[in-house]
């Protein structure tokens, strides 16, 4: 009986010690791991991709795209201008665009995805502002201004005036910019991107997809992004080479049969 009591009193201490050990080891492992799978973005990346059927195309490609329209690799970013994580990922996105500038295999598409949550009250309007800038060919410059100065304008009541100043600083016609912000056309483009994001079940920003595959948030650095893009380019190049090789014997066979028939007719 005494033995049983002793073993019973030892059990909770053992349980506590085990939990402490697991928490310490788990915490240290998580801290040191380079590819965490616990982040929401990673969870999202693990989700199965929604079917491409019934997914709206989003705003027509133009000012929101950098690169060749028929590129083999498409990087598509869904972002919110008041999202701190999007601002922190922005330099990597910019660097990626620069790294593949002029590469016919690469294109980058930006999609507006204002989250409409508390603390993101100006996100939608900011997206509209970049579209208005896009009408003057300054989409990316305005985006850069908004992300790099996010802290300043997001907490300022005169944020619209600040945007106008940004517009002026990148050489835009500010009066046209103001008119375009108020217009329908710019809002429609933002709405179209949002519809696409919703249909794709995007639940957090930034969401970056490379040829439709979500990249976990903690991999949104230039080194990893370049590796992923290079791998996709290589895959696409190999697939193209394989299809060319497959087409080659067929055309050879056709030309051979033509030669043979010519030879036969000559023999007659």
């Amino acid at each position, binding site marked *: 009986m005494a033995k049983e009591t002793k073993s019973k009193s030892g059990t909770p201490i053992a349980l506590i010690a085990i*939990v402490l050990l697991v928490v310490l080891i788990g915490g240290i492992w998580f801290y040191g791991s380079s590819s965490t799978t616990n*982040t*929401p973005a990673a969870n999202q990346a693990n989700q199965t991709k929604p079917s491409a059927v019934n997914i709206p195309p989003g705003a027509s490609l133009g000012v929101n795209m950098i690169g060749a329209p028929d590129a083999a690799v498409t990087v598509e970013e869904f972002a*919110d201008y008041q*999202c701190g*994580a999007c601002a922190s990922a922005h330099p990597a996105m910019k660097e990626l665009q620069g790294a593949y500038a002029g590469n016919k295999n690469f294109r980058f598409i930006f999609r507006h995805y204002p989250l409409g949550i508390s*603390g993101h009250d100006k996100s939608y309007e900011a997206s509209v502002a970049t579209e208005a800038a896009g009408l003057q060919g300054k989409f990316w410059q305005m985006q850069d201004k908004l992300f790099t100065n996010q802290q300043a304008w997001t907490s300022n009541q005169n944020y619209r005036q600040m945007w106008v100043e940004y517009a002026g600083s990148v050489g835009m016609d500010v009066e046209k910019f103001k008119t375009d912000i108020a217009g329908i056309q710019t809002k429609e483009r933002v709405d179209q991107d949002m519809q696409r994001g919703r249909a794709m079940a995007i639940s*957090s*920003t930034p969401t970056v997809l490379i040829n439709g595959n979500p990249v976990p948030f903690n991999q949104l650095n230039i080194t990893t992004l370049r590796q992923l893009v290079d791998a996709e380019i290589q895959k696409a190049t190999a697939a193209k080479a394989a299809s060319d090789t497959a087409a080659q014997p067929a055309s050879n066979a056709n030309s051979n049969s033509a030669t043979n028939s010519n030879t036969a007719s000559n023999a007659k």
Partner: protein
Amino acid sequence: MNDDIIAEDDGHSGIKKLPLAAAVVALIGLVDAVYLTVKHFRNEVVPCSLLEGCEKVLTSAYAEIGGVPIAAFGAFAYFLAFSLAVLAAYGNRLTWTLFRIQVTLMAAYTLWLLYLQAFVIGAFCQFCLISAATTLILFIFALFARGK
């Protein structure tokens, strides 16, 4: 005589069910707090989600006390609550009383943090809300076992 109702024994092992359930809930809070602590020390931004504004809350001035993330204090508190609940589950009435006092203090602090998120920062952090939920559940457990 202590008039607390901790919970009935399960009849076989002598383990009290209510403190055991409280220990499990405290464990959830512990995992959540450890996750947030590690994210803080890794200087990582939690991505924005449709449900909240994590990055705004977790990078606010209220996320730290003296350079230590409040998530780390939370992790310690949940571990303590877990330990007290486990000891209570094995029949230690004193630790259950301590658990109730601790959880009451945690619940009061949680209400303060919820107030900050709602009215001062203007954004909610989903991981902070999970923590708030676990603390409030623990508080209900503590109330439930207050006595006859």
